[in-house]
């Protein structure tokens, strides 16, 4: 009967799927091992997870180095340079988050095994997302990465604030999924396929101007706007970020957001590239609002995690800028795509670094108030310098990596050259200055304010956190000084030719 329906066993390229398989196997091992380990040996799980990610990363790099590409299940699952670069990013981010959480989870009152299991689950969703070129695959990947994240946000389950973080994230997350799915159903109805490539052909062809397609594109974009916390769909983000355990916040603000952007990149640049008349203005408004509102609210934050939350909302605005200006010509599409990818890669390093410092400092101060960073320089000069590097990189001061991220965005704006693009470029430039104000304020507190409680005992930083700090600062500085290597990744990763 299967044969009658024209069913063929899909021809899978298991070598190309190696990273996914390794991550899946690792999470299975972690889940089972957790059952048999007593509390004293739970630390093994973080090691197992870490090694699993490293092995997956090895396969990703190996595939990339050999130029191995594959297109499976009729083009719904594609392993190409774009997919590999982003898989690599997700795995590295996952590894750094594990480094950040190892001591945090061990010392706090948390379930350890399940924590690592859920992080790995979510990462699996992201790794799959990088290859998903079909609406169904994208949907499944998105849910795979989101569902564990909802639970992780509420990981401090005896703390009402963490519960609240989780609930808010969950409710808005599922709403976004539903809206996005409805959009997908409309697009499917008019293009007759869930494959992005087919949709791309269809939206450039006959059905171009069916109003329901417009509605469909709009709904899908709104759904992802929730996921990447673009204003005005951002309200869950600061609350969730503040309530969740800090390593989870780092994970959400970097990995989960990147996941949303990866899906958006594929859907927009493959599926809807012919309809920039619909999404161009929409992303313009989203980008301008997200940058401006994110920065303005960040200005009056007193909690460092909330400040970073709003800063990451604003950063998402910069990542949206290339989307808004992509539509005008082939060259600008290319440079817009590269700009978004490069920004995502750099953003991951600097934001994770900043969160790692927050975790390290909170080990001593047990507080998230910016005021608790007062006089940090006097007892933790190393951390202060690192935090300053990350903050100034986020602000876009050369020669740090963040400057390059912004330069790529401005290049996209100028390559587009339309007056609306230039206007958005000016909005972005003004925002860069506003953002500087609060980044510099944090730096000011660390370097110039007195220690609030006069307690100058140095901070002991565990080796795992040191490793996380070392990795992130290395990336931020190395990219800043020698961006070729990295810009190359951005070029290679392009989906648009």
């Amino acid at each position: 009967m299967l044969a009658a329906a024209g069913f063929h066993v899909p021809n899978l390229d298991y070598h190309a799927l190696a990273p996914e398989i390794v991550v899946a196997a690792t999470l299975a091992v972690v889940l089972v091992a957790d059952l048999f380990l007593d509390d004293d040996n739970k630390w093994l799980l973080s090691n197992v997870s870490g090694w699993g990610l490293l092995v997956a990363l090895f396969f990703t790099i190996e595939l990339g180095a050999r130029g191995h590409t594959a297109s499976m299940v009729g083009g719904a699952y594609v392993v190409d340079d774009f997919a590999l670069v982003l898989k690599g990013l997700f795995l590295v981010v996952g590894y750094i988050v594990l480094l950040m959480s190892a001591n945090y989870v061990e010392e706090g009152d948390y379930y350890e095994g399940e924590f690592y299991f859920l992080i790995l689950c979510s990462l699996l969703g992201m790794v799959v997302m990088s290859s998903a070129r079909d609406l169904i695959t994208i949907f499944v990947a998105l849910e795979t990465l989101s569902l564990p994240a909802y639970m992780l946000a509420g990981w401090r389950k005896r703390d009402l604030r963490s519960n609240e973080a989780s609930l808010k994230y969950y409710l808005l997350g599922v709403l976004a999924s539903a809206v996005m799915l409805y959009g997908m159903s409309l697009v499917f109805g008019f293009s007759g396929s869930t494959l992005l490539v087919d949709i791309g052909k269809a939206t450039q062809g006959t059905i171009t101007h069916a109003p329901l397609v417009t509605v469909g594109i709009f709904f899908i974009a709104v759904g992802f706007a929730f996921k990447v916390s673009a204003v005005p769909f951002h309200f869950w983000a600061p609350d969730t970020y503040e309530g969740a355990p800090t390593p989870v916040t780092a994970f959400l603000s970097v990995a989960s957001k990147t996941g949303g952007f990866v899906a958006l990149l594929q859907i927009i640049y493959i599926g809807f590239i012919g309809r920039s008349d619909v999404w161009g203005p929409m992303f313009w408004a989203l980008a301008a609002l997200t940058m401006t509102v994110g920065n303005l609210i960040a200005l009056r934050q007193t909690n460092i995690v909330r400040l970073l939350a709003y800063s990451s909302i604003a950063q998402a605005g910069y990542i949206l800028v290339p989307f808004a200006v992509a539509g005008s010509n082939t060259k600008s599409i290319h440079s817009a795509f590269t700009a978004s990818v490069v920004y995502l890669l750099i953003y991951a390093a600097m934001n994770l670094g900043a969160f790692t410092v927050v975790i390290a400092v909170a080990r001593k101060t047990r507080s998230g108030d910016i005021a608790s960073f007062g006089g940090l320089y006097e007892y933790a000069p190393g951390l202060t310098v690192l935090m300053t590097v990350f903050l100034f990189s986020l602000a876009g001061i050369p020669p740090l990596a963040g400057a390059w991220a912004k330069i790529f965005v401005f290049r996209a704006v100028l390559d587009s050259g339309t007056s609306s693009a230039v206007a958005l470029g000016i909005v972005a430039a003004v925002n860069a200055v506003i953002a500087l104000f609060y980044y510099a304020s944090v730096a000011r507190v660390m370097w110039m304010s007195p220690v609030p409680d006069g307690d100058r005992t140095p901070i002991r930083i565990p080796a795992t956190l040191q490793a996380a700090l070392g990795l992130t600062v290395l990336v931020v500085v190395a990219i800043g000084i020698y961006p070729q290597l990295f810009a190359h990744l951005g070029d290679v990763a392009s989906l648009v030719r």
Partner: protein
Amino acid sequence: MLGFPVLTALIVLPAIGAALVVAIPRTRPEIVKVVALAVSVAVLVLACYGLYEFATGTAGFQFVSRHVWIKQWGISWHLGIDGISLFLVVLTALLFPFALAGSDAHHDVKAYTAWMLVLEAGCLGVFLALDLFLFFVFWEIVLVPMYFLIGGWGYEGRVYAALKFFIYTMTGSALMLVGILALVFIHAGHTGHLTFDLQTLAREQSFSGSTARWLFAAFAVSFAIKVPIFPLHTWLPDAHTEAPTAGSVILAGVLLKLGTYGFLRFGLYLFPKVSHDLAPLLLTLGVVGIIYGAIVAAVQRDLKRLIAYSSVAHLGFIILGTFALTTQGVQGGIIQMVNHGLSTGALFLLVGMIYERRHTREIADLGGLQKVAPVFAGVFMLVMLSSVGLPGLNGFVGEFLVLIGTFISRRWWAVVAATGVILAAVYLLWAYQRVFHGVPEGENLKFPELRWREGAVLAPVLALIVFLGVYPKPVLDRMEPSVRTLVERVDRQAGTHQPSVAQGGHR
């Protein structure tokens, strides 16, 4: 040219010095100080070597060092020096050991010294860079150490002043970055190759009049904040007053010159026509700055603030000379940059010494110091007269050339600006009178005389003040070809001619 990369060494040396200082344990501040002084003196020696080897009578860039940095973007490590930047480099190299030796940090010497050396590397980089991107990187690097120096080692209102300084200049930088990128990508759009190289961009002018005007505006606002030109100057009095002594010396002596240098190197050179078109606006702002700075300085009660406002007036002269767009005017502007660096730098150091002795900067609290510390008063008098522009001292040469240069091309602005010279004499001499004349009372009776060490630090600057006032020819000769080429370029592009008087200058 010699194989040794002098210019690269000028930037790398202080950077290495900063790294060395960071490596020294915090418990040994005396080693820190020795290392920092040794490094900055070595930089000065290198700069003097450059001055010695500099080929007089050549307009082009010398000691050029060029290495590809980021190939895809056409960015290179491109350094060079010409008559315009030569003396600013030497001035920078001179003022850093001067500031380091002349004042001490009251706490955490190590971090303070490291920031100073980073600042030196950044400042030299700005003056030497011939690549727009490289220039921008150094421009930003300069900000960060200055922010921490003011905020960490300044006086009561330091944190506010530091943030104000940072935000102001950063706003300008953001605009300039947009300007640089727009310039480069528009150029790439026309010619098909991406480059940040200053000379290439200037040679292949490729934008329409209105685009050029916008681009110039982006650069000009950024430079104008740094200079600062009149309506954008409000950060300066706060930053100067609250900064530690060495910070004020560097801020006035070097940092403000980054803006005026920027106008010459990037404003006039890249946008000759627009510079010519907008000259009246900038001349007017310059003149307003001269008068406004002088009047506000006259009513200050705080000696340091008074000098800060006098900087606004002096920088107005430099802008005036620059946008007179005559050889004399531009030359006067450059030599005035050097003069202002020497005299205001020394004035800030002297005010710092007064504060160390008396713990006040209020003019009303001081008085009669001439009786108890005649040598100190004499030194102060000399420096102040240089700032006033007394003939025979360096300040006169600069102001005179600026006024002549402006008079040739824009008569009325020169006439109004000349009143600024008189005003400067009024407020500075009046301040001197209140601080040093009269009968000393109370604390002022115990005012210590100038120490040997302080005298040794000040001596080279005083010597230069006199030397440049009496015999400025060597300086003028070295900068003349470059300036003449620049002014001719502006004339050619703007389709104007200099009045014949201006051509007949000394050769």
